[in-house]
């Protein structure tokens, strides 16, 4: 179960109690020790009290997805034991507080009734009772090691150590204590944890010191009390690469700054808001070198205006207004917000405005599962809006790629003068991952055709008919370039025209930009191919399942199954030709997606005339784990199951 220095650790607790912070301290400590890290967050639509948990995979190998086969669980409340004890693998460990074991499971108020019922049925079928103790008993039967940690007693000792008599002030340190206990059991050098704590509380030296002391105390206590109770450990490795540990929303935000976005609008929504809040936090940033602002006035800084609007309609329309003034502009939202944006999207399409919508999908329909994961807005992103207009839909598969894609989204928007939807999802947004440091030298900003005033020997026509469908753009305020925009069909100047011939020419002008896009964008930007291209089993997917699929490829290979994996990135215009080439020899085409209906499969079918032969789908609001990707693809290949529905996750 535990191989090649690869650990799955999980921590759970009530929301608002610092679970996220503890997990990021854990992840950072692993990363400081040279390990590769992937961490993912699950939480309720709630601020305080409901259950949240964080899973961290740390490994000598690259890791890109989470696992539900937990090696070590850190808990301090009863609910975490009940919910996760049985996710721990045999000979894995559970750290728990002995003061919660007598609690009655049915009295834990934050668990859904249907969930409590399922747990009690499981216990009953094993001949066990209805308390937390019984769950631990079942875990024991399954050979799971139990590590009892009396937090309150330990806290009292820590209180003396740090000379802080008020225990309530120290309660928040319980998380760090749980992290420290885990590292002690894993025999992972304390120095990495100490460094991680110090970096996390960089600007709060006193808190950092207190936490390090508490952690050290617990580390030693656990060492003395439990020694080598676990059969496995975690070792640091040497890493020479320059790496960062970063979340999906932050990666996209940095991509926006790199790509020149200087106006971002948003209306608060989960899970998109983090991106805008971070952008506001860094709204003034240093430049590589000074630039001249006006004659002899220099600036060392650039800035982005982050504009919080009254709704998502104002978000897309204000971003569009900013784009008209010549700024690279974007907005970030989730499904419900995108629903409000589509009339504005249609206007941007009609007026050929380069505007980017960053769409973080979450569980739908309606409010759905607002803090959970799903990929069910692909067809909506491709088709939302009335009438026919060109757009590009670009899907990112991992956190590192999301940075570069955020730049490309801007380039595409300005090159082709159309709205671009950069589609991501909750799993990507809220995960953290160690990646190679982003390389700005790999980023090239392309602003497309901008009108050159010297060439203006006639009146400026904003929508001039051209071969490519692209007419040189002007910014509001540029002398000599007055133009008009309207949502009505218009002539080359942008004035309303209902002339039938003009309509045809203008419609064709706009729509042929899609042909230009299809022609100009190279295949490697449209899709990525992993594994043997000649393999008879082809997995097709898009978005965040990428991590789990890639990490499962090796496991499949060990089982003697060769798989080629195609990650589709540009969903519209769909890379039909490239797909045809890659699917033509496949015996089985397995579509892996986080939705009910296999939306990518539907697109492939409509574009190619042939579709996937097998579907591995998941729509329970939780992302696909490495094991699920492995078993799902196995079932399709070996057992020939046509539709496999995954249900993993708590």
């Amino acid at each position, binding site marked *: 179960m535990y191989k090649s220095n690869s650990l799955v650790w999980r921590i759970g607790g009530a929301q608002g109690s610092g679970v996220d912070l503890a997990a990021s301290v854990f992840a*950072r400590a692993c990363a*400081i020790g040279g390990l590769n890290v992937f961490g993912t967050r699950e939480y309720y639509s709630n601020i305080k009290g409901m259950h949240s948990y964080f899973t961290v995979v740390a490994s000598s190998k690259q890791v890109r997805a989470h696992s539900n086969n937990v090696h070590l669980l850190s808990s301090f409340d009863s609910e975490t034991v009940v919910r996760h004890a049985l996710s721990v693998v045999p000979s894995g460990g559970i750290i728990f507080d002995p003061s919660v074991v007598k609690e009655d499971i049915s009295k834990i108020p934050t668990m859904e009734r249907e969930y409590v019922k399922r747990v009690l049925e499981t216990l009953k079928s094993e001949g066990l009772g209805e308390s937390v103790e019984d769950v631990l008993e079942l875990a024991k039967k399954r050979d799971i090691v139990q590590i009892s940690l009396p937090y309150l007693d330990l806290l009292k000792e820590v209180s003396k150590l740090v000379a802080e008599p008020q225990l309530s002030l120290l309660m928040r340190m319980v998380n760090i204590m749980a992290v420290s206990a885990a590292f002690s059991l894993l025999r992972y050098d304390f120095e990495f944890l100490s460094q991680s704590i110090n*970096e996390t509380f960089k600007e709060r030296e006193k808190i950092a010191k207190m936490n390090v002391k508490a952690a050290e105390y617990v580390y030693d206590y656990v060492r003395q009390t439990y020694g080598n109770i676990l059969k496995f450990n975690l070792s640091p490795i040497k*890493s020479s690469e320059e790496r*960062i*540990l970063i979340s999906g929303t932050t990666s996209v935000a*940095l991509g926006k*700054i790199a*790509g*020149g976005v*200087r*106006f971002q*609008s948003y209306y608060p929504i989960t899970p998109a808001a983090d991106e805008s809040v971070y952008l506001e936090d*860094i*709204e*003034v*940033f*240093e*430049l*590589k070198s000074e*630039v001249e*602002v006006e004659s002899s*006035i220099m*600036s060392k800084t*650039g*800035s982005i*205006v982050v*504009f919080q609007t*009254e709704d998502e*309609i*104002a*978000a897309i*329309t*204000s*971003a569009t*207004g*900013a*784009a*008209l*003034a010549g*700024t690279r*502009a974007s907005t970030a939202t989730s499904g419900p917000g995108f629903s409000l944006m589509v009339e504005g999207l249609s206007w941007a399409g009609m007026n050929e405005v380069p505007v980017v919508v960053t769409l973080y999908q979450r569980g739908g329909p309606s409010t759905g599962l607002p803090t959970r994961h799903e990929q069910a807005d692909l067809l909506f992103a491709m088709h939302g809006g009335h009438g026919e207009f060109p757009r590009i839909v670009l899907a990112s598969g991992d956190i590192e790629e999301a940075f570069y894609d955020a730049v490309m989204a801007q380039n595409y928007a300005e090159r082709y003068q159309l709205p671009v939807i950069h589609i991501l999802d909750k799993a990507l947004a809220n995960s953290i991952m160690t990646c190679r*440091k*982003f390389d*700005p030298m790999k980023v*090239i*900003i*392309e602003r497309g055709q901008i009108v050159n005033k010297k060439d203006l020997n006639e009146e400026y026509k904003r929508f001039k008919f051209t071969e490519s469908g692209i007419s040189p753009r002007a910014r*509001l*305020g*540029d*002398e*000599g370039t*007055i*133009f*008009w*925009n*309207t949502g009505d069909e218009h002539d080359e100047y*942008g004035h*309303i025209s209902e002339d039938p011939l003009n309509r045809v020419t203008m419609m064709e002008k706009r729509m042929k930009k899609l042909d230009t896009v299809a022609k100009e964008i190279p295949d490697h930007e449209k899709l990525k191919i992993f594994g043997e291209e000649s393999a008879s089993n082809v997995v097709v997917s898009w978005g965040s399942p990428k991590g789990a699929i890639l990490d499962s490829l090796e496991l499949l290979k060990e089982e003697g199954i060769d798989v080629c994996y195609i990650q589709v990135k540009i969903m519209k215009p769909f890379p039909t030709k490239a797909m045809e080439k890659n699917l033509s020899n496949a015996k089985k085409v397995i579509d892996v997606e986080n939705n009910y209906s296999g939306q990518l499969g539907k697109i492939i079918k409509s574009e190619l005339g042939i579709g996937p032969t097998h579907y591995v789908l998941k729509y329970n609001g939780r992302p696909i784990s490495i094991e699920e990707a492995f078993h799902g693809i196995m079932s399709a290949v070996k057992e020939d199951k046509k539709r496999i529905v995954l249900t993993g996750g708590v």
Partner: protein
Amino acid sequence: MSHTYKSDVHIDWCPGCGDFGILSAIQMALSEMNIEPHRVAIFSGIGCSGKTPHFINAYGIHTIHGRALPYAIGAKLANPNLVVLVIGGDGDMLGIGAGHFVAAGRRNVDLTCIICDNGVYGLTKGQASPTLRRGVKTKALPKPNINDAVNPIMLAIVSGYTFVARGYAFDVRHLKGLLKQAIQHKGTALVDVLQPCPSYNDIMTKEWYGGEDRIDPVTGKPIPRIYKLEDSGFDPMVHKPDEGEIVQKMCSAIAKSLEWGDRIPIGVFYCNPYVLTYEERLTSRIPNYLQYPPALQKIADEDGHPIANLEKLMERFKIK
């Protein structure tokens, strides 16, 4: 040198439409203020008034129903050097776009918002609009209106607009004066323009505003319903940034805005020049925002690489 603000597009409003007066007033105001056309951007929504930008020789952005304000705000924040005008109908601004209308007041972005206020949805053939009073049955309504009316002046004041005025479409000279003041004002200005709709509003007609139904027995002339606030000695100005003064000026403006029927005031209701604009507020966070706003920023170096210092931004995520 004055600039021509007339475009060569055929104006397709109904004969006698109040929009003609509003269009002329805008063109005259801009021309008299000697603003270069390429510095002006006019945003509109949907409806008869939505077509206005096409008739003006300046950047004209004819947007979607109710959303002209957020388009305009986005453009203004991207480039605060632009002179931004927003024009919409009463349905546009106070019906479908009411949320944006209120939110704009909270920000005080430097722009001028003009409402073509005729009490009906003209372009869809005369349905009741948000400013039509309860009990009124204009000619396309099958039954009298059972909604109460929004008071644009009062709504603007309580939303935070810092310049609030009302004009009359057929007093073009007076309206032009209001527009000039509104454009000069630093902050969000509302000019609500009473405007007959000759096709669908057969109640609040030009004749009705002019009082042609009430003839002065002495002079034999009509007694107009419309009168000018400035002629009545009304002082809309907040003269000092003092809470008491502001409250008093707001209250008297609101009281004035409730006058309707026999006497309908036009002119400036309220003007508070002491509220920081949104652009000024941004400079507290982005010190050189006004000199180096989003639209004028350089984003790439000569080789096309980002000009932002990414290394610095990535610092806090680096693994050491």
